């Protein structure tokens, strides 16, 4: 145990953990939104994320940017980053929508049992990741050096980088925006209505299928944005990049209280922080051990997660 390491590096570990947690939070939203409305764990969501990371890299590739390129001038960088985020969000959103239309909707038409949904979700996940694996020869692909890590500010020995600030700010903006959308708009009310009582929502004139599509689309958009942030933080992607990250994000959703949007954020940040603290304390080989021990302990005391279940009850 390296308590001195943890104590000494507490600041930087926290900054990095918050950024990592922000990515988990954005990623976890897709799990929690879909679960809230359908009571379904959409395992293919990890592939929605992975596809988004490739979408951004391919977009930058169109402009001749790859991992060996030089960093373009600052004004162009902003353009590329924005474009990458938009394309990744769009492609991830569309992928999520296609999974819902092709894989899940036909099952709902036939009133399939929950197990059929579960195995379909796993199957959809494998189909997408293996297809990308074959197409990319299972190679990893590097990120063009659009953002050169630099300290934005320093407190003591804590160097907070421009990238960490970007990730945390972007997540914050998306979360506040989504929270307002769900809680303050007519469509958001429709989503909560279906989550709370699908039959009663239909009596109000809510088109359930349209709400479900919307929820997949939103989850996909958020995963696409998370994917670009992940690219900048980690530097590469691969056909199986969604898998391990997806487990962490799904864990975050369960930890915060699956079905609860704010819970996904809380869970994501806790997992991000504990991964970093745990690595410092026990060595980085133990990061997943620490994460899941934390999960199990918290669920022992709060079985429905820190903030509890239900999208509909996500109001503060």
């Amino acid at each position, binding site marked *: 145990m390296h308590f001195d390491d943890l104590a000494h590096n507490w600041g930087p570990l926290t900054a990095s953990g918050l950024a990592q947690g922000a990515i988990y939070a954005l990623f976890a939203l897709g799990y929690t939104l879909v679960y809230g409305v359908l009571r379904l764990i959409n395992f293919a969501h990890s592939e929605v994320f992975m596809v988004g990371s490739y979408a951004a890299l391919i977009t930058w590739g169109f402009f001749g940017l790859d991992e060996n390129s030089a960093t373009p001038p600052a004004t162009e960088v902003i353009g590329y980053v924005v474009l990458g985020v938009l394309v990744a969000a769009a492609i991830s959103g569309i992928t999520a929508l296609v999974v819902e239309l092709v894989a899940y909707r036909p099952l709902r038409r036939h009133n399939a049992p929950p197990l059929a949904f579960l195995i379909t979700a796993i199957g959809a996940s494998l189909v997408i990741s293996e297809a990308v694996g074959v197409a990319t020869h299972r190679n990893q692909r590097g990120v063009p050096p659009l953002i050169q890590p630099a300290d934005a500010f320093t407190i003591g020995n804590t160097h907070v980088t421009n990238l960490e600030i970007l990730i945390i700010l972007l997540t914050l903006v998306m979360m506040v925006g989504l929270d307002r959308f769900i809680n303050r708009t*007519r469509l958001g*009310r*429709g989503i*909560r*209505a279906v989550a*709370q*009582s699908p*039959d*009663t*929502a*239909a*009596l*109000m*004139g*809510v*088109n*359930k299928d349209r709400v479900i599509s919307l929820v997949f689309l939103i989850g996909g958009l958020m995963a696409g944005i998370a994917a670009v942030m992940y690219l900048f933080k980690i530097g590469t992607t691969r056909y199986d990049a969604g898998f391990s990250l997806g487990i962490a994000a799904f864990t975050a959703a369960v930890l915060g209280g699956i079905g609860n949007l704010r819970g996904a954020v809380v869970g994501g940040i806790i997992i991000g922080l504990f991964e970093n603290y745990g690595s410092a304390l026990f060595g980085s080989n133990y990061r997943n051990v620490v994460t899941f021990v934390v999960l199990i302990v918290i669920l022992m005391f709060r079985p429905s997660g820190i903030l509890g279940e*239900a999208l*509909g*009850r*996500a*109001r503060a």
Partner: protein
Amino acid sequence: MLLEIDNVTLLYGRIQALHGISLTVNEGEIVALIGANGAGKTTTMRAISGLRPIASGRIRFAGEDITKLRADLRTVRGISQAPEGRGIFPGMSVLENLEMGAYTRRDSAGIRADLDRVYGLFPRLKERAKQVGGTLSGGEQQMLTIGRALMSRPKLLLLDEPSMGLAPMLIQQIFSIITEINQQGTTILLVEQNAQQALSRAHRAYVLETGRIVKSGTGTDLLHDPAVKDAYLGVA
């Protein structure tokens, strides 16, 4: 004829819940459907609102065949159901529940006017506007489902057991409000176990027994029918 149900059958798995039901509701009426527990009253409601597909028969509303129409689209056409058992959205405030009732509407001025109308009928809901639905008392939740159903400005209001679980004084009050809603121009189909109240308020009524309609007539006729008295009115 606003609503016409013709020979409708309905199955729950292998169990037949409705054995060829036919009934009509004319514009401006209050029609009551009475019967014991398990007679098929709520099932009939769910067939009309579209929550449950029917096995055979026809449902026509305002001159159109809606047999195959999805539930949410029936609401758009003007059928609004206040579900039984306090079917509110428990995590939404009273105001949000009422706004959900107007989900299909975009005329914000009209919605505001109807909100005032509902608050006029149920002043208690106005006092509790910000309160979360799940924390309301049983009677208040009942008022909320009725008020919410009115928010779509329906042509036909389906009320499923509006008096269920309420204290006698509150039952009186709810039925007065139902009559008032009808006098303001809304046609009502009412499902009730409280046959006394339902028959004395309704223009016409049907008696449902194990998925079949066994009797129909004006509310007053049925109120004085010996068999109905015996079975449903608990007359000594």
